[in-house]
């Protein structure tokens, strides 16, 4: 493929958000060396400013895109609303995470420029991961995200738990990367292309390419192995069983802001890439009947994984003594809930999963923020360390209760609407009630989760008030209260949000 100068300039223009992010991350690295100052929070604000600028550019791109033909930069990066949705999500999540880093009382204040640099680097990885139809760039983006995450998990390398978390993350990350790349190599051998759209037969590719439909009829076994391996790679990023083993240990050992990023940003990126992979291969306009049927089988496999994941996550979360570990298992369970929408293999299901991700963002960022505050005050993360603190820090504790109710999925919080939409998608009449068992599983699991979520509230409010006093953190409290209010408010005014997620799902050209 030969690109002329004009196309280069146009491609660079389309990549403006990514370029801004790269520039800001390099600027952070240089400024950290040049300023040598005691307080690094200025660097944090620069990062947040960079993310705001990136979001602005993304919003402009969102307005421009949406036509039947997606623009591509360098024939690799697809600029579509679906990708922009996840990029905006990443920016929003990362801005809060960076704010958490600045508010973390257990973090040193100086020379942590590389903290911000690594977080922004992870975001660049996510941008390419969710913004491409090409498996090459998908692998590269995923690895960039992984490598930044390994270093972030081990950021307190002098602390044993942090180093151990990073070690486990590298080992399991390497395993899943190996499995995924091998699966991709099989798919490439079968079809002769790395471009998902060419593979699906939607776009024309050069040279010998077999469509996925042909590959499925000619060698179903090899396609099945390749699919399972690639889904395995995605499962690892989403912390879906059976690739969830790393999650509790890494989440517990990593610094809390990093845990927040892994639980929200990294998981959403995994879901974004998976949704695109499935939607382009199995749903796009021209997909043949054999491919659609195959997609439904993949859906059944995902339904099974969803049930296993949410059950494992919930049962393990009940037994934890550490709030952080409980939240880690809870995030595994939520990956299972999210998969319910994916398993339906309909665009309504995919939209429901995307909507649930927004709800998950609001409630999980909040819960981790509260944990960050309390563990910064008490130096511990156990349930017992929270005893009676609800009376010392009432505003934050009430916000925590809001987040917990939202995580359980009870009204009047947005978590309720998120679960409702997932159930609605799974009960779609087109599915003939095939996922009814999964819906029952989801509801039962939500009931179980009430137990361990309310346990936090019990320790906060129903235990003897603690002797210790806590220092106020006005900025963090303000952010958490805003998040809590949004949890309630967005249930009442959900329509624009729902419409926005629907508008973002433009992978299928209807």
């Amino acid at each position, binding site marked *: 493929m030969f690109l002329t100068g004009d196309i280069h300039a146009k491609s660079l223009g389309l990549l403006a958000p990514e370029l801004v992010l790269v520039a800001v991350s390099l600027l952070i690295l240089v400024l950290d060396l040049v300023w040598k100052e005691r307080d690094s929070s200025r660097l944090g604000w620069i990062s947040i400013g960079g993310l705001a600028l990136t979001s602005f550019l993304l919003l402009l791109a969102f307005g421009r895109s949406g036509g039947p033909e997606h623009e591509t930069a360098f024939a690799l990066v697809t600029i579509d609303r679906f990708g922009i949705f996840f990029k905006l999500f990443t920016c929003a999540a990362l801005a809060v995470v960076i704010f958490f880093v600045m508010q973390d009382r257990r973090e040193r204040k100086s020379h942590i420029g590389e903290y911000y640099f690594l977080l922004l680097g992870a975001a660049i990885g996510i941008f390419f991961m969710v913004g491409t139809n090409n*498996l*090459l760039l998908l*692998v*590269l983006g995923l*690895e960039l995200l*992984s*490598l930044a995450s*390994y*270093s972030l998990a*081990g950021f307190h*390398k002098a602390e*044993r*738990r942090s*180093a*151990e*978390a*990073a*070690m*486990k993350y*590298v*080992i399991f*990350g*390497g*395993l899943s*990367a*190996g*499995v995924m*790349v*091998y699966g*991709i*190599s*099989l798919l*490439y*051998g079968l079809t*002769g*292309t*790395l471009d998902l759209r060419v593979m699906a037969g939607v776009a024309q590719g*050069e*040279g*010998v390419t077999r469509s996925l439909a042909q590959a499925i009829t000619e060698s179903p076994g090899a396609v099945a192995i390749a699919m399972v391996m690639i889904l395995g790679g995605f499962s690892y990023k989403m912390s879906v069983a059976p690739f969830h083993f790393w999650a*509790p*240990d890494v989440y*517990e*050992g990593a610094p809390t802001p990093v845990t927040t990023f892994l639980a929200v940003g990294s998981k959403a990126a995994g879901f974004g890439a998976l949704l695109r992979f499935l939607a382009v291969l199995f749903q796009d306009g021209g997909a043949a009947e054999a491919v659609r049927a195959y997609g439904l089988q993949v859906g059944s496999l995902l339904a099974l994984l969803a049930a296993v994941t949410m059950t494992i996550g919930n049962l*393990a979360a009940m*037994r*934890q003594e550490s709030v952080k570990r409980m939240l880690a298992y809870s995030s595994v369970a939520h990956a299972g809930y999210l998969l319910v929408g994916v398993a339906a293999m309909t665009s309504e299901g995919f939209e429901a999963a995307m909507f649930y991700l927004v709800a998950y963002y609001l409630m999980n960022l909040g819960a981790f923020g509260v944990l960050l505050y309390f563990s910064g005050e008490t130096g511990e993360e156990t349930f017992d360390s929270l005893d009676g603190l609800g009376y010392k820090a009432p505003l934050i504790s009430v916000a925590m209760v809001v987040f917990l109710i939202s995580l359980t999925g009870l009204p009047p919080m947005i978590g309720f609407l998120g679960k409702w939409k997932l159930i609605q998608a799974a009960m779609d009449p087109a599915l003939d009630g095939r996922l009814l068992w999964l819906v029952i599983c989801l509801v039962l699991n939500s009931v179980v989760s009430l137990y361990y979520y309310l346990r936090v509230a019990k320790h906060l409010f129903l235990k003897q008030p603690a002797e210790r006093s806590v220092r106020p953190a006005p900025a963090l409290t303000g952010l958490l209260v805003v998040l809590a209010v949004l949890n309630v408010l967005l249930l009442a005014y959900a329509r624009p949000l729902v419409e926005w997620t629907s508008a973002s799902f433009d992978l299928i050209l209807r």
Partner: protein
Amino acid sequence: MSVPTEYLLGLAAILFGIGIAGFLTRRNLIVVLMSIELMLNAANLSLVAGARMHSTQRLLDGAGPDLQGPVLAIFVIAVAAVEAAVGLALIIALYRRKQTVSLESVSELRD
């Protein structure tokens, strides 16, 4: 004479199997990292074998060789190197504290 593609794919599958087996059975962190490298290189071999298969067909059709597979393989080599660098750095950090590179040394975090 040339080696049939099936042989190359078979060799890749065997290498991948050895990598998985090593990953699951070995207790030494360095050997575990080596197993991961083996898996990634098995994937590379399989990518290059696939590219050769497609290229043979394309050259008959008068088109150039298929470069997608080899390009991904080159990127995977780079990624594997970085992954090894990060992994070894962490092993050194653990070794300084515990004087061992066994998997058992990373067992503080558990249920």
